[in-house]
């Protein structure tokens, strides 16, 4: 070992400093990092690509209907696919107008918001400011679990359990509040079951989890110093919530309600199960007739001719754009949270 080390005999050659390559210090990513970043970025853009493709393909399939119906597609009240005697599609006499279903969508989602949002927001307030730790934890779990229930379960529950008692409430509402136009019924038709009112209630229950969890998250972000300052000034809990928590969380809560609205508008199976789908404009929320765009699509799809399927695709496009718009608004509002308030 030692004999060949020759330490003492090593001759250091003089170093020519000009010829030494300098170590390069750089922040340029290496090849592996560039590939990694490329892959992750393209994966991240998948949502953009998918949403874009949805728009393109629905527009491609639905374009002929949109073109032939024009604005009538949104304002018309008839949905008739006419075939002539040789079973060919008659484009002249066919009418595809979506207004009845658009109004139906609006009616039941507004009912859902009216019932669902106050309950959800109050529940969120209870969970954040009132509930003891143990109750809070288990309640949060239960409400999150409810978000994972299949929608057809809500539908069947609404039809078989809620609808019979809902009919009783609807009759009560009709008896005492029939002077309000919405709660009136057309003469001779006293069918209270399977009404938009019931469908709205089912949707209200379905949006409780999402509205509650978002409101809860936003309320729990209320700055602690403001909360404690309010208590130190002698505020009761209610005064603190009214003057500190609500102003802070207002826009977030509005946003969560909008998200719930988006969910309610796109719900298909639960509405199909609960509601008696009739293609007419119906403002009487207690009457057993109504519908929304999504449930209409699944109802008509089974026996639709190729041309009618194109019209259904166009209806899907309208639904897609409407829910996208509502979600965009909701997102914009939620992200403003915290900028309001004192």
């Amino acid at each position, binding site marked *: 070992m030692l004999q060949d080390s020759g330490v003492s005999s090593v001759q250091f050659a003089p170093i020519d400093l000009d010829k030494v390559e300098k170590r390069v210090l750089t922040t340029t990513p290496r090849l592996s990092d560039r590939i990694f970043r490329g892959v992750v970025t393209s994966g991240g853009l998948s949502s953009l690509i998918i949403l874009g493709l949805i728009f393109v393909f*629905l527009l491609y399939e639905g374009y002929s209907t949109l073109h032939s119906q024009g604005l009538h597609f949104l304002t018309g009240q008839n949905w008739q696919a006419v075939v002539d005697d040789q079973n060919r599609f008659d484009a002249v006499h066919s009418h595809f107008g979506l207004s009845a279903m658009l109004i139906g969508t609006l009616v039941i989602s507004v009912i859902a918001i009216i019932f669902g949002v106050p309950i959800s927001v109050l529940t969120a307030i209870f969970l954040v400011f009132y509930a003891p730790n143990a109750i809070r934890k288990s309640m949060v779990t239960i409400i999150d*679990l409810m978000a994972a229930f299949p929608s057809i379960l809500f539908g069947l529950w609404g039809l078989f359990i809620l609808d019979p008692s809902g009919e009783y409430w609807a009759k009560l509402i009709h008896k005492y509040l029939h002077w309000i136009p919405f709660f009136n019924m057309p003469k001779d038709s006293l069918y209270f079951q399977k009404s938009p009112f019931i469908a709205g209630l089912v949707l209200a229950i379905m949006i409780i989890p999402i509205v509650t969890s978002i409101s809860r998250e936003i309320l729990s972000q209320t700055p602690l110093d403001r909360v404690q300052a309010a208590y130190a000034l002698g505020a009761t809990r209610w005064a603190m919530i009214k003057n500190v928590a609500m102003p802070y969380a207002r826009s977030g809560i509005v946003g969560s309600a909008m998200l719930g609205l988006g969910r309610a508008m796109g719900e298909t199976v639960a509405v199909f199960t609960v509601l008696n789908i009739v293609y007419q404009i119906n403002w009487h929320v207690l009457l057993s007739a109504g519908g929304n765009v999504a449930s209409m699509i699944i109802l008509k799809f089974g026996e639709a001719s190729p041309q009618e399927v194109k019209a259904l695709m166009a209806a899907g496009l309208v639904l897609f754009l409407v829910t996208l718009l509502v979600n965009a608004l909701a997102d914009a509002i939620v992200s403003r949270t915290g900028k309001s308030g004192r």
Partner: protein
Amino acid sequence: MTSQLQATDLSSVKPSKPWKPSKRDRIEILLTLFASVLISLLIVGIKGWKSGGGVGHVYFSGLTQMKGKLAYLAVFFITYLILDFTVSTIRRGTAAGKDAIFRALVTIATTIALFPIISILISAWMRGHKGLHLSLFSKDMHSSAFTDPITHGGLIHAILGTGVLVILSVLISVPLGVLTALYLTEIQGRFTRPIKFLVQAMSGVPSIVAGLFILAAIVYPLSKSFNGFEGSLALAILMIPTVARTSEEVLKLIPGDLREAGVALGGTQWRTVAMVVVPATRSGLITAIILGVARIAGETAPVVLLTGGADTINTNPFHGTIGSLPFYIWNGFLAGTPESVTRAWAAILVLLVLVLVLFSLARYLGSRKVGGK
């Protein structure tokens, strides 16, 4: 002047807890509750319930025409609100009265929010357990109709079909969802804000639109037939946002120290993410996947549009129609006879148990410390 401080024996002093309700407060609360129950009984009446659910002997007919369990609840809540408000106002002033009203309101709202969940769970069991039998898990429906007596046929094709659909959607959506989450947390490039918004928007895409999209993009122009793969694609679209958002939440919890340590040891970003960050979030990512599965397992609309719903076992998602639990429930509901509806409830019960198991699994994994092995 110097004041003399007396030495107090600290161990003998009991800490006072002014925020705890005193004995008097407790008696008050109990009395208010008791009085509300009494008044609601007075107003609505006292009846004995028969075991079958009908109204039995009427002990006291009540002061008004109102009847039913709902009336009890409504009257009880209103009376409690009023009594609580009055008592608090008299004892501690208007501010306390308002506080009491609001406290009662949020409690009532929470009870109302819990009510449907409990009702749904109970009714799913009450109606579903009649349709449960062992051959449900060994037979399919190829030789029996939905309107046959309950003991004919079974669910096995639907359970396997749902399994196939779910596995395939997981394979499609998890890479995309996790990559999206990694982009949002690790790269944070200039698309971060738009992608956050798009993921949010995508979670709002109605399930029927996802189904129509696959119809327009794949079924009509290309395959012209229904199969399981198409259903999985639609389900994957619905699953990506759930996976992406949950994994983003988990990745955010990983302390920056870990990443810095990885880079300081000479790792590239790729190696830091692959060897440090992702292994640390493993259980969180599994939670994300499970929550995504729970989200899509019961999704009905795209399955009805795209998979065709076979009656026999088909585990090949690329060829032929495939059955699934939501489709089975849908058919049972549409057939409309008592037998078929019982079948639907039984299948819902199976689906619900599946979702419950997945959900508790996700909770269990999610409750463990992030970064633990």
